[in-house]
Each structure stands twice: as structure tokens, then as C-alpha cells.
């Protein structure tokens, strides 16, 4: 089954490269370490055979779309799982990726590997709305959030202090995140130094909370930050909590299911009643 999907993926990539519709296909290849895959670029039709599709295809490759070294290569096709496709849609919505600059090869790796038949952004969006949105913030995610909600504020504070104490400020969470695309992150702004760079209590709290805030209403839940964190900080718990808050506060808004319109926390409307402040 998964071999068939992998062959289909390679055929799709080959077709795009042969037709000259893209300059490269960004996908996964077998890594040098068994049981892991690694990001790879296929630039010639024959290189499509380097691509693999299996459960080890964990990276969200959309993070590369805005890298200067990758942008220089030209038009990309990208192998993208549902959460990764949502990241592309947020990038389009936020004017970071031009809609016609990227071809999406939609794939799934769970419950089984497949190549999605939908090809255009519109078709993929419809697929996500119909098949993924209903399971968004699933029971397991919400159970984790419920555990945090059940704590007293003091307990919750202690919990996050303990987690953030582990942070070494390697910024792997930021670097793997497709939506952390700022050319200069606030933590790198030092006149004044808004966020202390020291991995101490204050600095780590300011960094991690600021990052979570910046992702509220934008995070697509791909989980890359938590996977990349070498210190095992459960970063997704806070991201999910915020996603739920946004959903419940803004008429069910969930990030990644629109290519157009204002991002929920970045829009301005003159007729906004603003009745939450007097």
C-alpha cells in the first residue's frame, strides 16, 4: 500500500519536473540514519526517485519556502501533509507566499500513506475543510488542554516554570516553524532588548510566552516545534490551548482553512465594535 503511494508520489514529481512546471520538488528522502527521513530537493526528473513516503516523513517542509537559498532556486512543488498544507495556506493568507509560486503535492502518512488526488489549492482547501477540520483539536489534544485548565493558576504557573526552566534558547522551535518567518525576530532586537536572551527564568518565560502569543490564531498544529525541541518542552500544549481559545472566541475560527481574508488577529475593520474595551 505505502509502496504504491510512494510510486504515485514519484510519478507526480517526475511529471511536474518533466513538464517544466516547477524548478524543484521539495520532499523527503531516506536519511543517512536508518528509520529517519531527511528533507531533499529533486531538481531533475530522474531525481524524483529519491523521494520517499512513509511515516518517518515528519518534517513540515513548508518552512523552506521562505528561505532565501531555496527561493533563489525558482518555483517549487512541495510534498505536504494536511498540517503542512494548512501552513502554506496561512503563508498565502499572510502574503508571505505567492499563491502561484508553489505547487502542492498533498500526501497523508497517517492512518496510511497516500497521495491526495486533489491538485489545485482550491481542491485541497475543500478536502481539508471536509476531512480535517472536523477532527481539528481532537479529543486527545483537548484532554491535554483540559488537564492544564483543571490546575489552579499557581499550579499552572509552577508547571510552566518547570518546563521553561529546561529551555536552552537554541531557537530550534522558531527555526522549524514555517510561521516564524520574521527576518529579525523580536528576541534579536536589542535596542532595547525586549526579550532577555539569557536562558534564565525571566528570559525563558518571556521568550516562550511571546512566541506562543505570536502564534495564537496562526499555529496550524503541525507539532514541529515540540518535535525539534532538544529539551523535551511540551510546547504544543500551549499552542493547542491558544488554538482552542481562538476557536471559541472568534466564531469557530481555526487557522489554515482559508487562503484569503484577514488572519483572525491581524485584521482591521473600521466598523469593529471594539466593545471589549471602554
Amino acid at each position, binding site marked *: 500500500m505505502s509502496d504504491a503511494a510512494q510510486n504515485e508520489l514519484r510519478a507526480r514529481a517526475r511529471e511536474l519536473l518533466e513538464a517544466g512546471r516547477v524548478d524543484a520538488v521539495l520532499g523527503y528522502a531516506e*536519511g*543517512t*540514519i*536508518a528509520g*529517519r*527521513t*531527511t*528533507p*531533499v*530537493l529533486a531538481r531533475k526528473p530522474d531525481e524524483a526517485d529519491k523521494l520517499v513516503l512513509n511515516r518517518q516523513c515528519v*518534517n513540515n517542509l513548508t*518552512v*523552506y519556502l521562505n*528561505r*532565501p*537559498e*531555496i527561493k533563489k532556486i525558482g518555483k517549487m512543488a512541495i510534498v505536504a501533509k494536511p498540517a503542512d498544507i494548512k501552513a502554506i495556506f496561512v503563508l498565502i493568507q499572510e502574503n508571505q507566499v505567492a499563491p502561484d509560486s508553489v505547487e502542492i503535492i498533498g500526501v497523508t502518512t497517517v492512518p496510511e500513506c497516500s497521495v491526495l488526488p486533489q491538485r489545485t489549492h482550491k481542491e485541497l482547501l475543500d478536502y481539508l475543510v471536509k476531512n480535517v477540520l472536523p477532527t481539528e483539536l481532537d479529543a486527545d489534544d483537548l484532554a491535554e488542554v483540559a488537564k492544564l485548565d483543571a490546575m489552579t493558576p499557581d499550579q499552572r504557573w509552577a508547571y510552566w516554570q518547570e518546563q521553561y526552566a529546561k529551555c*536552552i*534558547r*537554541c*531557537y*530550534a522551535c*522558531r*527555526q*522549524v516553524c514555517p510561521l516564524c518567518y520574521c527576518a529579525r525576530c523580536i528576541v*534579536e532586537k536589542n535596542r532595547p*532588548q525586549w526579550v*532577555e*536572551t*539569557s*536562558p*534564565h527564568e525571566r*528570559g525563558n518565560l518571556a521568550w516562550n510566552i511571546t512566541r506562543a502569543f505570536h502564534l495564537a490564531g496562526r499555529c496550524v498544529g503541525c507539532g*514541529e516545534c515540540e*518535535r*525539534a525541541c*532538544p*529539551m*523535551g518542552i511540551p510546547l504544543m500544549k500551549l499552542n493547542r490551548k491558544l488554538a482552542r481559545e481562538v476557536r471559541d472566541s472568534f466564531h469557530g475560527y481555526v487557522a489554515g482553512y482559508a487562503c484569503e481574508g484577514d488572519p483572525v488577529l491581524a485584521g482591521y475593520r473600521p466598523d469593529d465594535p471594539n466593545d471589549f474595551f471602554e
Partner: protein
Amino acid sequence: MRITRANLGKLVRELAAFGSTIVAPRSQGGYTDFAPILSLDDADLSRVNTRRSIKQFFFPASEPILAFSVSGKDVTLEQADPPKPAKTVILGSRPCDAASLPVMDKVFAWDYNDKFYLDRRAATTVVSISCTDCDECCFCTGLGLAPDSTQGSDILLTPLSENEYLVEACSDKGRELAEAHKGLFDKGEGDKAAACKRATAKLPKPMDLAKIKTWLDAHFEDSLWKDISLKCLGCGCCTFICPTCHCFDIVDEPSGDRGVRRKNWDSCQFAQFTLHASGHNPRADRAARWRQRIMHKFKYYVDRFGPRSCVGCGRCIRECPVQMDLKDQLRRIENLQG
């Protein structure tokens, strides 16, 4: 010498009773890292390696180097001397981590004696344990080390069975520790090679390090750098968990009329690392930054101090979110001509 596991447990208790802090690998929340232990039962000595290296005990991620207060135009230094470090025993570091210490010693006592590092170094005894197993990321043997190397260890323990270790005291500090607790040690020999054979069989063949160095000497500019760095995302994970990466940043953190100057880990993989005040950045792209990491470990450090500043612990490979594989890249360089 030999020591039984039961006596190793007693040694932990005796050292603690004499006022030493004992740190050892501990497994918590799905990963293993060094943390203080009060009993040998708290330690997890079965893992291939810890998430972070022992670097943190000599060169912490962040430390105050002085405190100051400002009054009008006067600045007063409130604390400029490092506090006296606690007597510490690191138990269960791997030989690769121990081998990083002589590498770091050269840097921190080169043109300037870094009292913060050197005082901790003097106050710490390193009791390593040979590796009976390894994983695919380990490559100490590629760099001339071995799962039972003694470099940097004060004492090296090699498991002879589940209940007994061979003991090698490798330094004066190690011999003093063994002498001070001699009732716990037995006479005896042991076969180190046999104990480590599973690891040795899996570990890679030695690399031609001279050839790698020769290639690096001549290829500051090369298309390889762009090629191998294309997928690198530029986080600092590899450098922070590396036992020999030693770059740091100095920051002042003021609060009102007082403040603290701190020394924090920094990473050559960050874009801002070499950013000049003028706005110019001599390492403008990923290729230049990744080249720096390899050049520093396998050329610049070698030119200045002799050995390489990499011990093959494999952490950077294990934890890299996009699987940058230093071992594989070195093999590639080894096979390049010219």
C-alpha cells in the same frame, strides 16, 4: 581495581556525606540528562548518551560574571569574582564527553584564564563509564577515540557484568578519590575490549583525519558548503548540545539602577552571531555558517591546538531536526580529491 555495583552505591553515599554534589544521567519525561542524585538508584546508566553533554557543569548555559549598580555617574562593581564552585562528582559520563574536557581546557586557558571554567574544572571529578553499546549516530572511533577511551576521565569504569566494574584511575584526582574510599574497591583485572565489543563492532572505521584537514586547508571556497547546508534551518541545537562548542555572548541585564552582566551560550549558526554594528555580516548565509562549524572543529582548532574539537558523541546528528549528519559529511570530505 574493581568495584561492585553495591559498593558503587556506597561510594555515592560516602561522597555525598563528604559534601560532594553528585550528578549522573537521569531519565525523566522521556529523555535522559545529567541531574543531581542522592542514591545510585536515581541514576540511569543504561543509556547510550544524555541529551546534553557534561559541558553544562563547567560552562553553564548562562552565568552571572559580575553585578553592578549605578549612582549618578558612578558605577560600582558589586561582585566581580566567581563564587567558589561546589565540589562535584560527575558519575556516568561517556568517554566521548570526558574527552571533550581536554579540548575545552585548551580554549579556556589559552590567551586568558577563564576562572569560572577553571575553578569548576578543579572542583569536579569525572567518573566515566565505558560504552558497551552505541547507536548509529555515535562516531568516536572515526576520530581516534574509543568506547573505552580514558582521555579526560579521572576514573573510568568499565562494566564487566551487571554487578561489577573494572576501575581505572586515570589522573591524580581519580587516584586520590580511589585512595580516600579504598575500602570499597577490590583488587582485580578485567577485559575492557570484551566488555565494549558490541559497541566496537557497530562503530565506524577511523577516518583519514589528515586527508580531511588537507582538503579543508584548500577549500574555504567550495560548492560543497552550499550543497550540504541547504537543508540546515539555522537553529543552535547542534552547538548547544555539543560537548566542545564553546562560544558565548556577554550581555548586560539592567533593572533600574542595578544590573548583572552574564555570559550565555551563543551559536555560530545564528544569523546574528557575526552581524556587525555596520549592518555587514561576514557570514551572510547558511553555507558560510555551516562551513564555520566544520572548519572550527576540524581546521581552525587543529591549527591552533593540535587535536580536533569534536569527540564523535553524535548528539548533533541525533537531535538535528532536519538530520544534518556531520559524520556523513566528514566521510564525504574524506573522499574528495584535491
